[in-house]
């Protein structure tokens, strides 16, 4: 029988997913793996993981990895890329990591135009630590540290990282995608590919924000999670290419 689909070679063999059922991280790992294989850069690539559920990527991929302190992945990537400019470096970071504790590192690396690729997974909550409020948490959305829901008076408003970084001159590519259906999956993969091609061509800082669910943190079933994405998350975080130069 003809083999039409298989796992990418970028994954550790015999690893069974430990992500929560319905989590989109496994899909993201797969998409990145496919892009690395298609661009034939697996053996040149190092993953810099943030701290959070993104950190779990290290347990599944089979290429080089270094764990950065919480929020510092773009700083760690800066040091790596500046000293090995012909190698490929990408970070994977959650919203707490990229947009709260690491906000300074994130904006500064983007502003310097570091020639790196950032995959920013926005699930609007702190997944790993059990569902606390994130800077991206929607107004009214419940979190373990905002039990009556986020309110603007006390907590301010959700932060839009694509738009924040779009204020800067240096970044070359900023896109917001999702993995909620096959069509968006396709677009996400294209965006990831573009972000890596930019790095290969030495063009500078690229960031792909992937809006996902966190079913455990949100307390929703997989199908409810998909609805929530469409009804609540996408209106706040509109999908699309924000910058491509």
């Amino acid at each position, binding site marked *: 029988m003809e083999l039409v689909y298989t796992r990418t*070679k*970028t994954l550790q063999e015999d690893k069974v997913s430990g992500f929560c059922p319905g989590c989109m991280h496994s899909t993201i790992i797969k998409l990145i793996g496919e892009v690395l294989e298609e661009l034939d*850069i*697996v*053996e*040149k*690539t*190092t993953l*810099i993981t943030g701290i959070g559920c993104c950190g779990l990527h*290290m*347990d599944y991929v*089979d*290429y*080089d*990895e*270094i*764990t*950065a*302190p919480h929020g*510092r992945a773009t*700083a*760690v*990537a*800066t*040091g*790596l890329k*500046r*000293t*090995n400019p012909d*190698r*490929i470096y990408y970070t994977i970071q959650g919203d707490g990591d990229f947009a709260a504790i690491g906000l*300074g*590192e994130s904006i*500064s690396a983007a502003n*310097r135009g570091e020639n790196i690729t950032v995959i920013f997974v926005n699930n609007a909550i702190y997944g790993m630590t059990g569902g606390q409020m994130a800077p991206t948490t929607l107004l009214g959305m419940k979190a373990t540290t905002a039990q009556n829901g986020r309110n603007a008076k006390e907590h301010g408003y959700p932060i839009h990282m694509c738009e924040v970084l779009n204020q800067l001159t240096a970044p070359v590519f900023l896109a917001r995608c999702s993995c909620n259906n096959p069509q968006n999956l396709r677009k996400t993969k294209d965006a990831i590919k573009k972000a890596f091609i930019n790095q290969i061509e030495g063009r500078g800082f690229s960031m792909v924000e992937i809006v996902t669910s966190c079913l455990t943190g949100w307390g929703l079933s997989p199908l409810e999670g998909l609805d929530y994405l469409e009804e609540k998350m996408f209106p706040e975080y509109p999908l699309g290419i924000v910058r491509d130069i």
Partner: protein
Amino acid sequence: MAKVLMKGCEAIAEAAVRAGCRFFAGYPITPQNEIPEYFSKRMPEVGGAFVQGESEVASVNMVYGAAAGGTRAMTSSSSPGISLKSEGISYAAAARIPMVYVNVCRGGPGVGVIQPAQTDYLQATKASGNGGFRMRVFAPATVQEAVNMTYKAFDYADMDRNPVLILSDGVVGTMMEPVELPPMKSDDEIERIKESKKKISCIGHPLGERVWIKPGVWDTIMWENINKDAEKLYESWADQAEWESFMTDDAEVIVTGYGIAGRIARSAVEIARGQGLKVGLIRPKTVYPFPYKAYEMIDYSKVKAILDVEMSIPALFLEDVKAAVKERCPISTYLRSGGNLVSREEMVSRIKKLASR
């Protein structure tokens, strides 16, 4: 080789370049600004990279990255900035990443004063970050020592795969002295050093030969074993402590201090000897590992007192001196802080008092 007149901070930076350091990231803070300034000019000349980080936290993590990529890398700061660096230092110690960093200590706590002090002793020697790791800590008393120690620090970092700290102070960092600079490592040599780390550097590898840098794991037994390996490393340094002993054989009073306080103390000891006083000096050059042996070699039947001199109130170095002396003789202190230097004259008068006991 001919000597050149150089400022401590610049000499440290040049020594690092000559040792093959090809990445530096740092954030401005007095009294160490000359280190990043020097690197910013020097790195492009030697094909290295300099980044002014957006903070000490970012800078140390850039260095953690660069070092994990196989390049000899360094950062520097002064006291409050060093506290911020503790995150990256702890990660480097956990993941066994070689890196060198310099603390040009100023007076603390808090933002304190920009003038020289030795108030970071316990942080430097006992807990430069969370998690109970250890580092070799060198304490230069002259610009020449700062140069030699920095040059060597990169070899130690690579050999141990562990961070190394140069614990300097605002005097050594900002004064100018004639120094003999160590030889410049050739590009070939530097490439060979990087090449030798290829199998453990984050540069991409064929599948199945992955480099996986782990500053933490899920498996508790694995982590305990990692702790045990690190402990073995730390214990292996025990007999590698370095110090200066001066005229201790017949001494009735022994002055002890490290770094700039130790250097001023030596000068006081020379003056007191000139006045016929039986006085000697012990000056640790490594403050971790601590040179306990230096204090074992003292003839305690002759010694009336030990005088601990340091630029810290409360005394911090004293804790290690006490552990070394083990109550075999009284220990007296002469302390200044707040950016004020210890005075040679005051030391001599205190030596006199102790000798006449």
